[in-house]
């Protein structure tokens, strides 16, 4: 337990001392919303209609941005090798990393989402449904992202290929995420989204650990 706590503490410190990485992600998220408005035009009816989809696209892209720092620094300075002789299993260390990745790259987006909701002319009820769907769905995005980052960690310049691998896997998250905001069966979609998140979060650390231990072999 102390080992897991140490891992969480270290990841959080590294992320928060990262010189404004969190702020960059939030800015990216907000700017994406503004770009949509510029591209579509200031038609608030149309904006409100596409808002749920745009929020999810912005969140998906913003979470991709932070992925490269998930494993690559630890791979490059040899820490991943050392973590394999630690008291806690590699999959637990990776689970801690995914948890912190969610805390520093998804939670700030959710906190900043009111700004995006304003930009995209979202009404109050839709806004709360969007917060719920982001809260439930972003853990799955973090988990799939971790798998993609783990698979590409030993490729030089692999940061480019990871999004290509992650995007198809994330399609169900986007579908159910947007569905749980707009669809007539939004509560069903939210349940599907929750099931997807639980499954992804419970399996991804093992898959990522397997990929990382194969990467050194």
């Amino acid at each position, binding site marked *: 337990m*102390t*080992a897991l*706590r*140490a*891992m969480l*503490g*270290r990841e959080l*410190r*590294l992320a928060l*001392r*990262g010189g404004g990485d969190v702020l960059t992600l939030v800015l990216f998220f907000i700017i994406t919303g503004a770009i949509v408005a510029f591209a579509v035009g200031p038609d608030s009816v149309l904006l409100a209609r596409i808002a749920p989809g745009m929020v999810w696209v912005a969140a998906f892209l913003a979470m991709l941005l932070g992925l490269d720092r998930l494993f690559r*620094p*630890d791979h*490059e*300075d*040899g*820490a991943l*090798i*050392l*973590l*394999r*002789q*630690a*008291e*806690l299993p590699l999959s637990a*260390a990776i689970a801690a990393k995914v948890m912190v990745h969610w805390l520093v790259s998804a939670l700030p987006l959710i906190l900043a989402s009111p700004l995006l909701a304003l930009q995209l002319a979202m009404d109050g009820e839709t806004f709360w449904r969007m917060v719920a769907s982001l809260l439930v769905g972003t853990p799955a995005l973090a988990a799939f992202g971790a798998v993609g980052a783990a698979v590409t960690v030993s490729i030089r310049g692999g940061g480019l290929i990871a999004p290509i691998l992650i995007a198809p896997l994330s399609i169900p998250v986007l579908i159910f995420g947007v569905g749980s905001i707009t669809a007539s069966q939004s509560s069903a979609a939210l349940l599907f989204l929750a099931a997807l998140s639980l499954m992804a979060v419970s399996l991804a650390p093992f898959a990522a650990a397997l990929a990382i*231990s194969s990467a*050194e*072999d």
Partner: protein
Amino acid sequence: MTDRQVFPPLTLRATGLSCGRGGMTLTADLSFAVAPGQCLLLRGPNGTGKTTLLLTLAGIVTPLAGTFELEGTDSEAGPQLHYCGHRNAVKPRLSVRENLDFWAQVNGPTGLDIQEALAEVGLGELGGLDAGYLSAGQSRRLALARLLVTHRPLWLLDEPTAALDAEGHELVTRLLDRHLDMGGLALAATHDPITLPDPGRMETLALGVRT
């Protein structure tokens, strides 16, 4: 340093071990045993598989053939070894003390106190400094301090003296000697000569001898 933990008598035994990476065999059919209190020096020119052998023994690279075993360990016990590679795994954004404290917590704080370990490797005054300001040699010392904060019987050292000054070489020798005193085992790949006070504790394995 009065209450020295003494390790249970362990022997590292490799039989017919072949290691390699990327489908290439680098070291073929090695057999050796390292007894408690013994240090095995790996020597050989570059590219003869010293690092690969150490990584194999650390369980990171799968051996191509043969087996190795740390005899005498309890199967319930956790990891028994420290690997110290080329890369120091020092995070520039954490302070020196935070870096060391992390590894102590993750590996189990069974060894020296953080401050004692830092003093031992000559970084006692720098605990609060961001590790990004350390020189290459100082980073190396920090990596060596990691071996002290957690007691593990087997040390696998890859170029432990890299980037270290003359005093650093003495430091490595001193740490190694004390580890062997406690009944520990060590394998070290090195180009620099390491001379322990008691030469009977050292054996040399030459790699890359073409037959």
